[in-house]
């Protein structure tokens, strides 16, 4: 009985969080440099694990699905061979104090593994080639109830947003 309970608990966890796909469309005329962050969005799980790329991801201006130059990460592993912007190593935090650097092909990062099934793309810290166009954006979740999910520069000429469509996380940048 106990075993069944544990199993169903695991199944629920898997249903509740699956990493999903990350798509970045940089419609702006500025180059993007940033950290892409996935994490547990469950306060009950303490909001960990969290995962972010070690090396800054750089996406040139005008790179999006409209010209086939978008960033697309399907999961921590396949992105290395299938994305235009591969990440070689990931910083994995199982909790605030326990930090490991994992190669993209580390078995612990496999789709279906615990890290993959308990995390979702939810945040970015980025800057651009325009000094004033930089922000920390995160989906509003129980772990980040007061986060900012859109950002407009003081001039009003640049705009960035993070949002989901059916579990796929989109990060999009715009400029006039």
């Amino acid at each position: 009985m106990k075993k069944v309970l544990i199993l169903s608990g695991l199944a629920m966890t898997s249903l509740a969080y699956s990493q999903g796909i990350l798509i970045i469309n940089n419609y702006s005329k500025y180059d993007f440099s940033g950290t892409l962050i996935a994490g547990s969005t469950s306060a009950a799980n303490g909001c960990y694990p969290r995962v972010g790329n070690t090396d800054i991801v750089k996406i040139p201006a005008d790179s999006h699905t409209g010209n086939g130059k978008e960033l697309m990460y399907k999961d921590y592993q396949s992105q290395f061979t299938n994305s235009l912007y591969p990440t070689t190593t990931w910083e994995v935090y199982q909790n605030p104090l326990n930090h490991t650097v994992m190669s993209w092909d580390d078995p612990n990062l496999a789709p279906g593994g615990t890290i993959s099934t308990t995390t979702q793309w939810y945040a970015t810290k980025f800057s651009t080639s325009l000094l004033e166009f930089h922000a920390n954006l995160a989906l509003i979740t129980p772990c980040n109830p007061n986060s900012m999910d859109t950002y407009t520069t003081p001039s009003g000429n640049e705009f960035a947003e993070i949002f989901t469509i059916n579990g796929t996380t989109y990060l999009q940048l715009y400029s006039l």
Partner: protein
Amino acid sequence: MKKGLALLSLAAFSFGSAQKGPLILNNYSKYDFEGYIIASNSDGGCYPLVTSADPDLVKIPADSHMYNGHELRYNDYQDQFNNSLYPMAAWSVMLSATNTTTIPWNDPSLSLGGFISDNTKWAASKFAMYYPGTHNNAPDNFGGTVSIFSNCYNTTPNFTTPSGNMAEIFTIDDGVTLYTYIQLY
């Protein structure tokens, strides 16, 4: 004479509401459309910004368009609820970056001639396309944003992906009514 007056008042009515005319979305493609519908400041600024909220994603099956009567048509924020195949029960209204409210379709503040309607135009859609009946992305991750009018959502009004999927947004102004079309191929 009477007819002339009636026409005049109709014309005045149409000019009075800056939302000005319907949004028509034709999905000619073989993929399902799921996305946000966005209206923004009619002068090209960002706010007010009105976004679909309940449901947040408008879902339009593959091959749904004016030629088979399955297109999405929203005459305005309110009328659409009773007259569209894809009714929107509530809209998210941002008056500024820090002021967002979810407003039911029949709230008086969304009526034609009101502040929100007068100061917004259909402007953009951010969307994803899927193989029918699934949430598997169409080729080239067909999706993203197309926009007009908006300082927030400033993209090209049309694009074609490397394998030939196309999305566009454009307007046709017949002098009385401004028609906004979003079309997927």
